[in-house]
């Protein structure tokens, strides 16, 4: 099975819907894998590691029930196979406290959820361009 390009953890089905549409619009070859809570995310990620299909980019919603985005981030950073995978925190909050905590826990970037579809498209486009091209260059 092909490794997902983007692994997205999001409990809000609306945003999952927006993300699916936006990613398809940016590039229909991009593979998106979604987990709707922390538990599901962690077991999915474990399976992906076992199958040696580690995702290229991980997007984490910050506020999730039970296991938060930061908990998942910590889990990811403890697994050697995923040390180099870029992780972006993706949240409605723009609180400096949340931003600081995410960076300290090892996030590569913190992105405030864009307001509206047009802005979302712009956001995903630039994320994709930066991380994937960057990723390719590194490899």
């Amino acid at each position, binding site marked *: 099975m092909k490794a997902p390009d983007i692994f997205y953890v999001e409990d*809000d089905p*609306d*945003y999952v819907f*927006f993300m699916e*549409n936006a990613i398809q619009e940016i590039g229909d070859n991009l593979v998106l894998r979604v987990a709707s809570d922390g538990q599901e995310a962690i077991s999915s990620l474990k399976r992906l590691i076992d199958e040696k299909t580690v995702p290229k980019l991980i997007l984490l919603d910050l506020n999730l029930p039970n296991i938060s985005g930061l908990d998942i981030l910590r889990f990811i950073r403890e697994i050697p196979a995923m040390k180099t995978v870029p992780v972006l925190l993706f949240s*409605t*909050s723009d609180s400096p406290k949340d931003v600081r905590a995410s960076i300290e826990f090892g996030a590569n970037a913190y992105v405030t*959820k*864009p*307001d*509206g*579809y*047009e802005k*979302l498209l712009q956001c995903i486009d630039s994320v994709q361009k930066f991380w994937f091209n960057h990723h390719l260059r590194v490899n």
Partner: protein
Amino acid sequence: MSTFQADLTNCDREPIQIPGKIQSHGFAVAVAQKTLIITAVSDHIGSWLPVDPDTLPGSPLSVLENLLTKHDDNLSVTQLLQLGLQRQSFDAINPHAITLAGASFYLICSLNKGTILLEFEPASLEYDIQGSVGRSASAMLGGKNLQALLHSAATEIKRIIGYDRVMIYKFLEDGHGEVIAEEKEAHLDSFYGLHYPASDIPKQARALYKLNLTRLIADVHSQDAALLANTEEPLDLTFAQLRAVSPIHIQYLKNMGVASSFSISLIAHDQLWGLVACHNYSPKYIDYKAREGAKLLGQILSSALEYRQEEEDADKVAAFKSSAAMLAAYLAKDKNLVDALTSHERTLVNCTEAHGAALLFENTVTLVGQTPAETEVLALAAWLKQNMGDSVYHTHQLPEIYRPASAFKEKAAGILSCLISRELSEMMIWFKPERISLVQWAGNPEKPAEPGPEGLMQLSPRKSFESWTQEVRNTSERWTQEEITAVLSLREIVIADINNKATAIRTLNEKLQAAYEELDTFSYTISHDLRTPITSIRTYAEMLLKTNFGLNESSRKMINRIVAGTEKMNFLIREVLNLSKVGRAEIVMTDVEMGPLIGEIAQEIKTAMKAADETIEVGATPPLRGDRTMLSQVFSNIIGNGVKYSSKNPAPRVKINGVVAGGETVYSIADNGIGIDVSYYDRVFELFKRMDNVADIDGTGVGLAIVKRIVERHQGRVWFESKLGTGTTFFVAFRNR
């Protein structure tokens, strides 16, 4: 014989216990305790016994005994004395009835410093003493209060001993005395209420009054009998019944017109409380048993005095205490401390016997009862604040210490003050008026001195007992321990109350603070939670527009309105978030260079508001002390408003200028815009309030609320001046510190 001459300088030292003489209505013989040899005899013994007095001193007691047995076979003086010496008291023997020349006599023995004194005095059997004393005691004790007790005591004593006048005389604190009860023959002038100077009864006389509870002067006009002695040491007559009277006192009584005097000591708490002073205007002799009866009444009266005085003191204390308790109850009920202490039936005045009181609390003066004027009280309080070492101060002679008090001594010659808070000058002051400015003295209390034979000023007792009025100035009734105790307990109650109320206010404050913080958190959270669904709405709307090409024009318009609506909502939410951030954020104080900051802000605003034609003039820009980010918010909001509301002016302009004035730096931001109706002055800074004339200009009504909040958190001020259609000038003032 004493050679002592009393004069002004030694009057208190006249040795009245060794006069060398006795009163002549009886005779006396002194005997050495060890040898029973006669040491002294009164020179008129020949009037009763056939003996040459000069031969007696040095003779054994048996000589006297032989003389006496000729009259009375049963008498053995020697045995009597030995019995007394054995028992170490003559109380059981006294008086020993004997017969001399067919007349009844009492022999009274006393021992003093190794000498036994035998005194012989007539017995008059006219009184049924025991019966009288019993009846009198019950009549006396029937009196309900102290005054009634004293009055009935005077009546009963007069009934028993039959003197023309019986007075009860009380020693006051400074030693002078006052007649506080009197029973007299109807034709006599009353001495009731008269005051007698302390020198009327000198110190050594008082000491004797404590040792001998009765004292009889039978006839001031009789000649004393001298004591013939064979010893150097003068005979000490301290315990003698017949002891001769000081010539000064004799003269004193004569001047008063008194022929015979009898006194009974009143002792309370081991102190000479007073005397029952009995005067007769003709010579009068009462015998030993009558005197003992009177003494017994005096003792009964003394113990009743102790008891009644304590009872009355206790009543007063109870009254003070109940007043304090009432006040405590009022304090618990009333919100206002001043009302609680001054407006009810019982006020703080009732905690003492004062006639008025002042309460200085929270910068107001409340006066109750008889008090000086408010301005006088304020001046007095200022003086007290400076001079009170302790929390309580009292004086009964205020005008002597504090000159201005002379002006209001009729109301406050005595004060009792009690601090509530020295820092705040809060205190309670009680006032007692100048005590009856008049004292009725029995004659001029200054004993006139007369030149003696050698030109020395010699004491002579005053001659006139016409009541003599002296004005005692600047003095009130004294403050008692009970009053001070009551005041201190009231102070505790008041301070506890103040502390309770302060705690209540502090608690309220803390609750308010908590509520405020909660509101901040709430607005922060709610804005946050609102954001997500609004974003969804907008995103769906935009997706609809983007993906459904079949939509007609009117549907597209509607969807666009949805997008605009969410845009506006988001803006509002951001503003509310900003406001709550201002409340939550910590202030980091620095000195902020305002020139560059204002320049940046002006540029940003021009760009953001697309107001290229706006003139922003920046004058002086003194630095401000504050939180850089917050200061920047203040200026962007006010300058932003200036630009926004002047945009319709053909030559829009905003002028910014700062001045340093009196510990503050004040910036003015003036525009030439549409202006604000000043009748809505207060609403300008309220959240979500927008003026009527700005309906077509974008805004949320949050900006100035943020400005106000920031300025308040900096302990600064913000205000504005405006004229509709001409422009508005906002001012912000920050402390320089």
